[in-house]
């Protein structure tokens, strides 16, 4: 497994052009996350329309893996219901886990299960970087928790 598998084009694209950056005019829930080991930081704001996350905004700084993961996450959750988001989150975590084989990505149809996020599957070959990819997701769960 080479570096090209870790730093795929879609990851670098999200790193250089992160989606849903900034702040919401009126957020219903927000949370901050920090990785004390490496100093990566993120803040997430959510606006709900009933059960649906109608809008999301992220402010963050960190490495390409943490930034692109958060950026792809915002695209994956926008317009989804809370239970759909929990499902995506569980699948993402399973993909990142070295010993969780509850999901299998379809190698014939890349992106079929988790869309662009599947580009991050190479991260789990670099165990010290898994926490980078997970920072945004852990912070998202905290924001959802706060929203009640």
């Amino acid at each position, binding site marked *: 497994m080479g570096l090209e598998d870790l*730093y795929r084009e879609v990851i670098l694209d999200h790193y250089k052009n992160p989606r849903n950056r900034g702040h919401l005019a009126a957020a219903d829930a927000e949370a901050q996350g920090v990785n004390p080991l*490496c*100093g990566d*930081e993120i803040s997430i704001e959510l606006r709900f329309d009933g059960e649906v996350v109608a809008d999301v905004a992220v402010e963050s700084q*960190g*490495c*390409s893996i943490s930034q692109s993961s958060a950026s792809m996450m915002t695209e994956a959750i926008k317009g989804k219901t809370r239970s759909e988001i929990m499902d995506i989150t569980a699948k993402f975590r399973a993909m990142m886990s070295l010993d969780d084989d509850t999901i299998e990505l379809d190698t014939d149809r890349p992106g079929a299960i988790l869309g662009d996020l599947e580009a991050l599957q190479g991260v789990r070959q*670099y165990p010290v970087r898994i926490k*980078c990819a997970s920072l945004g997701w852990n912070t998202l769960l905290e924001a959802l928790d706060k929203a009640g």
Partner: protein
Amino acid sequence: MTDLSHLKADFPILEDGVHFLDSGASSQKPLVVVEAMSRFAQTSYANVHRGAYRLSVAATDAYEAARERVARFIGSSDSRQVIFTRGTTTALNSVAFGWGMEHLSEGDRIISTEMEHHSNLVPWQMVAKRTGARLDHIPVTDDFRLDLDAFSRMIDSDVRIVSITGMSNVLGTMPPIREFAEIAHGVGARLVVDAAQLVPHSPVDVEASGADFMAFSGHKMLGPTGIGVLWGRMDALEEMEPFEGGGEMIADVTLHDATWAPIPTRFEAGTPPIIQAIGLHAAVDYLDSVGMDKVLDHDRALTEIALHRLGDVPGLSVQGPTTIENRGGVISMVMDGVHAHDLSTILDQQGVSVRAGHHCAKPLMRRMGVAATARASFYLYNDESDIDALVTGLRQARDLFGL
């Protein structure tokens, strides 16, 4: 340049293709250090002091011989001034709490600097909060040095203790300790030096340095983890209360009171790092056989070459002095468009080990306006092939990121 390339063979871990550039975090161990600890554990090991049997006497002799050897290594004429601790962090906490809690109160001042490792920042914050003393920090100049003029303006007779780094673990900067000592002593303040990076990489004469306390770690100077040193002037050590109570450090104990053993024993509560002291003894023998002046020359020569070569890498900036005067072999790098953690992962594929992050110096990182750097640090076993691999990896990172 001092050629130390023959030394690499003494370090079994440094095989071909291993470019270890993280000695600032912890150094590799030569075989003689590993063997000395192994031999001691197999032939002479027992707990030290108070044992009336042959093995304990042998272990005590070896432990105390290590203390004398370390004292000679740093120019201390009295080995009682060498206190074995768990490491630099414990040594600095011992001074902050053991000296600070005794001698500081509201109205007193502590001065540290903006370029400290957290281990020389946080203990002083804790003691300042508990005693009501005020904590101030000497600023870092735009050329990554400590502002001595600012220090002269900051100091007054309320300052009781000043604690500075002997060499920054992020910048490589080596502040002029002698000048800081003169200014601190001018108002009767004590000077503490965090020498975790200095003692492994430079000749140090503690008695001539002007420092009242100096702290360093064994594992950054070819020795094992789990042992460090607090050196102090005898009159300064006498002002200090033990930071830890327990076995070994007492003269007498009743149910409600205790009196202290003499220095240094009163500061070494519990079973000390015995095997580690044997390893540190061997490490110091090794360093002296090379010569600390040669170690410093070698580190500086490599640093000069690296600074020059890194200047040709597009988008790369070095956070630290760009000349080698009063500077050690630590180079913090920031690359436009590639985060330090990504650099570290990419360099690892070239066999190059560098550290990425805030290097336990978050206030300094804020001062520099960066969140993280990738840090390469040199030691006596590094050579130009390590710099070649570093530069190759940095260029590869730019390619991978499409820069």
